[in-house]
């Protein structure tokens, strides 16, 4: 965790503006992610966190601003492009198919097939790989053919994260990964996030639970009303200060205001 040394930026979102009709959702937001860190993205409802992430993952297009990956400017037109660029997201409502098993969910859309036409699956190979993926994240799920709706909330979250990392992404976006989880499970999920960092996958961690943010993150970005209010190193701030920023907005304003 070499926070004192400036590491190379892997992601840079500059001056992102987005409006929906008359509503200004993002007003010149900047965000950067370095290759060895987990950053927290916090803010009240309608602060713009989801919108910003949806732009990053290709669901929305920014009205103006730029996105760069590894120093190169990129255009993210769709979720498919976002994935291809190595940006994976774990969604708030998990986006797992409850009617399918662990392996099937991990490989959904990217199955290992014997042939491209009939698309017969290499089921045993996929099962083996599933176990490997989960093992790498130190997730304890022994039966890859167990249906996902029979897993606990924490285990399902683990599978969702496993799915996101299974194809060696450049970075991960985690949207409220610990919401709706029991205390015991939260700890497990946070361990996975730290494991991810150890494995060299930086992440953006969105959460309302500041405890969790302070536990796993290196830096914290605060949004309010579509603007970035502040960015702080975790070691240089505390809960109360962050809460103040979230709800009162004291702090640096973005250069271009409406």
């Amino acid at each position: 965790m070499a926070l004192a040394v400036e590491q190379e930026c892997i992601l840079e979102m500059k001056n992102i503006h987005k409006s929906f009709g008359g509503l200004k959702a993002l007003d010149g937001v900047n965000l950067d992610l370095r290759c060895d860190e987990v950053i927290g993205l916090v803010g009240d409802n309608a602060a713009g966190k989801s919108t910003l992430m949806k732009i990053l993952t290709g669901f929305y297009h920014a009205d103006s601003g730029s996105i760069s990956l590894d120093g190169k400017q990129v255009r993210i037109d769709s979720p498919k492009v976002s994935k291809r660029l190595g940006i994976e997201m774990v969604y708030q409502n998990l986006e797992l198919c409850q009617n399918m098993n662990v392996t099937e969910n991990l490989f959904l859309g990217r199955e290992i097939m014997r042939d491209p036409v009939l698309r017969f699956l290499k089921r045993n190979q996929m099962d083996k790989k599933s176990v490997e993926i989960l093992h790498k994240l130190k997730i304890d799920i022994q039966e890859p053919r167990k249906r996902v709706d029979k897993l606990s909330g924490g285990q399902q979250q683990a599978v969702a994260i496993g799915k996101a990392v299974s194809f060696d992404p450049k970075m991960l976006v985690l949207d409220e990964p610990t919401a709706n989880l029991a205390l015991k499970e939260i700890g497990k999920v946070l361990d996975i996030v730290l494991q991810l960092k150890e494995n060299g996958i930086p992440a953006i961690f969105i959460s309302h639970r500041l405890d969790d943010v302070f536990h796993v993150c290196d830096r914290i970005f605060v949004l309010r009303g579509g603007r970035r209010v502040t960015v702080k190193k975790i070691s240089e701030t505390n809960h109360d200060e962050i809460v103040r920023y979230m709800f009162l907005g004291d702090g640096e304003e973005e250069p271009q205001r409406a």
Partner: protein
Amino acid sequence: MDEPQETGTKAVKKAGLFGFIRKWDFSGEIVSILIALIILCAFFSLTSPYFLTIKNILNFTMNTSILGIMAAGLFIAMVIGEIDVSQYSILALSTAIMVIFIRRGMNSGLAIVIAIVVALVCGMINGFSVAFLRINPIITTLGTMMIYRGIAFKITEAKALGVTGVFFSAVGSGRILGIPVSVYIMLGIYLLVHIMLTYTAHGKRVYAVGGNPEASFISGIDVRMVRFWGLVVSGAAAGLAGLIFVSQVGATVPTAGQGGLMDVITAVILGGISLSGGKGKVAGTLIGVLILAILSNGMVLLSVQSYYQTIVKGGVILMAVFVDSVRGGGFK
């Protein structure tokens, strides 16, 4: 025809029927309707001396192959979360066109190909409307049901038109090892569907789109195309069933199936599909088809008044939907 058994260390080993059921996924549904099927068979074999004869069993399985093939196609559409009430109309239209061409001197083989193409086109129209124009599948297929049927009436002038030929005799009356050809075709279709759904990526995407279309989309699956093909398959099944129909009945009949569309849906629901999509085994549909066939056959053997038949069929539908809702939400 179920998922392979779990090899987890925590599998509960209880003796007897319940332990057997407990180890399987999904099997609760299949086992319960299988038991219903067995009990029905037992009942009719006790009350009619003709029921449990090979001839009768072959008869009703052969006669139900039309419904059976359509149900297999509808099953796929319903797993995806769609529905198709236009199947019988597609059957009527595709067979009408085929028979008219044959009667005008066209080679049978070519006419049969045209029939399948017509069925595919009808399915594509349904699929396009639902998947790309985003029209509700019930409304779409209700509309096309009437359009296809209307066209069939127009071109046949509302008359049944007879046809003969080697192909139709072979499929309609032919037997291999004593079993009617149409039964082989029906079973073959079910096997194909099972293999496709269990062992191929196509099948997994069918379940995925039915279970969680958002997750499927995010995973890079073209949800629209899956929905599109679901209705194409359903239409194709109707076309294939149409060939069997003409072979068995000896004609195209423009009024075919006007009362029968509920039977196809009933068979699929009875077989354990979830009405919201994403769940179900095609083997269940086959059992559902057989249950309906046995009910009809048994009631004819016992000379049961048609009013009772209607009541029983209605009861079956209610039962199937009720069981589906219990499975889906009752205990959760």
